């Protein structure tokens, strides 16, 4: 017969399991404390997040996204999956994560410069799509990491590095209430603002974080928890005065409270089925399977090509076609378009490198081949061509000869030849033909293949093929 007896054991509340015991990723000797300043709100908030992850048993499923800002090094501390996102992009990165790994718990942890300034678009749209993620928004009314510049959440009158006489609403706008803003959207399930100040309010933070994570576990969708937090260093206040400042100055404007909660009525989101089948993906993306076996001899060295013309002449497309053809031929290729104000009339250009070895840089500063489709292009790039290189000139539009004597010049009326086929827009295909006639790096058949996949209409394919042939066969 068994009897029940009551004994006592010792229990300890200490560092949450979801925070590493030692911070091996952190540089320097001290691997036991965080890099946060004394009294920093990040430390408290992150400890609460880690505690929730640990106690809810989510450590093995969680992906914590570190933002840019003082919490950029969260991956030193969080004993979870970690991703560090570019400034403001955490919700976009998170979107990828929740869709590709639907069983993960994704936490987008962001500061107010990160979320409410540079990342405004990402947060609004992730919220609007109702991505199944939990956003922890640390509102400390300033850019911490960079030394105390004004954030969108900076209080009116608050002195920062960039508002030395205090934020002026007339010139710098009003502090943005992100929780309220997000709550107006249809999709978010739960939006709350909490204030990480005294014991009572810290417990409210704790509860809100748990609720956000629980809703994600239940696939209920997007939750947003704004935490009013301190930055004693940049506020130039003691940790005690900082807490008081949150209470006296921030709270009356950024009122804590639940701004939206439809969690009781909302249905769980369907679990997306990520497609990981290679064959299927190749089909969706229109990719070929596996590596192409080189069809030409492949020993072409490295050809550095610049194609330039005015916007609409198809210089960029011609470059992309050449590069694609080279790639299909098993060669290494790069294609680098150059956009800019030139797109409106002057010169639009692209750089193409086709090589039988790995390519070091996609920049073409000294082309072996220049295809000049209009006069400004020839004027702009003639001097850059490497000695011994070749310049292909669209003589329909360029009324001068190549001045250089140390390069080979080829003249062909790209535009007239194309117009003769009834499609002026195919001047770029003529240019490709001229290129192929003088540069034996790619087989003409490879270009035909590219043309066949580039155009939907059969006539367009055929006219372009004829344009390539016209350029190829043209004799000056």
């Amino acid at each position, binding site marked *: 017969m068994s009897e029940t007896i009551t004994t006592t*054991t010792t*229990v300890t509340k200490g560092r949450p399991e979801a925070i590493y015991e030692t911070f091996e990723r952190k540089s320097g000797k001290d691997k036991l*404390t965080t890099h946060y300043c004394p009294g920093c709100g990040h430390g408290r908030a992150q400890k609460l997040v880690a505690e929730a992850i640990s106690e809810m048993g989510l450590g093995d499923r969680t992906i914590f996204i570190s933002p840019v800002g003082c919490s950029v090094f969260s991956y030193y501390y969080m004993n979870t999956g970690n991703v560090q996102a570019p400034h403001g992009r955490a919700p976009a990165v998170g979107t990828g994560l929740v869709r590709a790994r639907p069983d993960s718990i994704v936490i987008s942890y962001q500061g107010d410069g990160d979320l409410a300034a540079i990342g405004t678009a990402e947060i609004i749209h992730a919220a609007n799509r109702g991505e199944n993620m939990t956003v922890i928004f640390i509102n400390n009314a300033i850019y911490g990491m960079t030394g105390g510049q004004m954030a969108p959440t900076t209080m009116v009158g608050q002195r920062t590095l960039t508002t030395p006489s205090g934020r002026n609403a007339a010139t710098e706008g009003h502090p943005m209430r992100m929780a309220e803003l997000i709550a107006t959207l249809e999709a978010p399930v739960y939006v709350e603002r909490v204030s990480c100040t005294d014991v009572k309010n810290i417990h409210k933070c704790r509860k809100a974080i748990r609720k956000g994570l629980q809703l994600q576990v239940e696939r209920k969708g997007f939750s947003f928890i704004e935490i009013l937090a301190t930055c004693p260093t940049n506020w130039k206040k003691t940790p005690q005065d900082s807490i008081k400042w949150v209470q006296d100055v921030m709270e009356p404007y950024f009122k804590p409270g639940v701004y939206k909660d439809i969690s009781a009525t909302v249905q769980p989101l369907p679990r997306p089925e990520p497609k990981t089948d290679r064959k299927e993906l190749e089909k969706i993306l229109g990719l070929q399977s596996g590596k192409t076996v080189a069809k030409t001899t492949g020993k072409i060295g490295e050809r550095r090509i610049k194609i330039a013309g005015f916007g609409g002449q198809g210089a960029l497309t011609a470059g992309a076609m050449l590069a694609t053809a080279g790639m299909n031929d098993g060669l290494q290729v790069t294609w680098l378009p150059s956009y800019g104000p030139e797109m409106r009339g002057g010169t639009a250009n692209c750089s193409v490198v086709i090589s039988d070895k790995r390519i070091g840089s996609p920049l073409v500063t000294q082309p072996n081949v220049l295809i000049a489709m209009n006069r400004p292009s020839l004027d702009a790039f003639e001097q850059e061509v490497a000695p011994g290189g070749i310049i292909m000139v669209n003589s329909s539009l360029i009324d001068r000869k190549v001045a250089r004597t140390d390069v080979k010049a080829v003249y062909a009326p790209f535009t007239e030849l194309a117009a003769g086929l009834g499609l002026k827009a195919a001047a770029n295909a003529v240019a490709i033909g001229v290129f192929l006639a003088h540069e034996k790096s790619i087989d003409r058949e490879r270009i035909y293949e590219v043309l066949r996949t580039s155009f939907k209409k059969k006539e367009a394919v055929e006219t372009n093929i004829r344009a390539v042939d016209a350029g190829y066969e043209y004799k000056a």
Partner: protein
Amino acid sequence: MKLPAVEIKSNQCKGCGLCIDSCKPGVLSLSKAFNLLGYQYAEYKQSGCTGCEACYYACPEPGAISIHKEKKVQVQR
């Protein structure tokens, strides 16, 4: 030591004093000495802790404060 009790790892403390403010019974104080990081650190007066955990949540450092408590458990024999 009598439980409940708070344990503060002096070399993980940054001396912000937030735990001290949060402690209702007032059993925490700041040391005169400096720790390895160069901060004066929080110390327990060695009695009077109620185990309320307020200081634990007030502290921004993950490992600086631990609270030890007794818990009654029932075991089958």
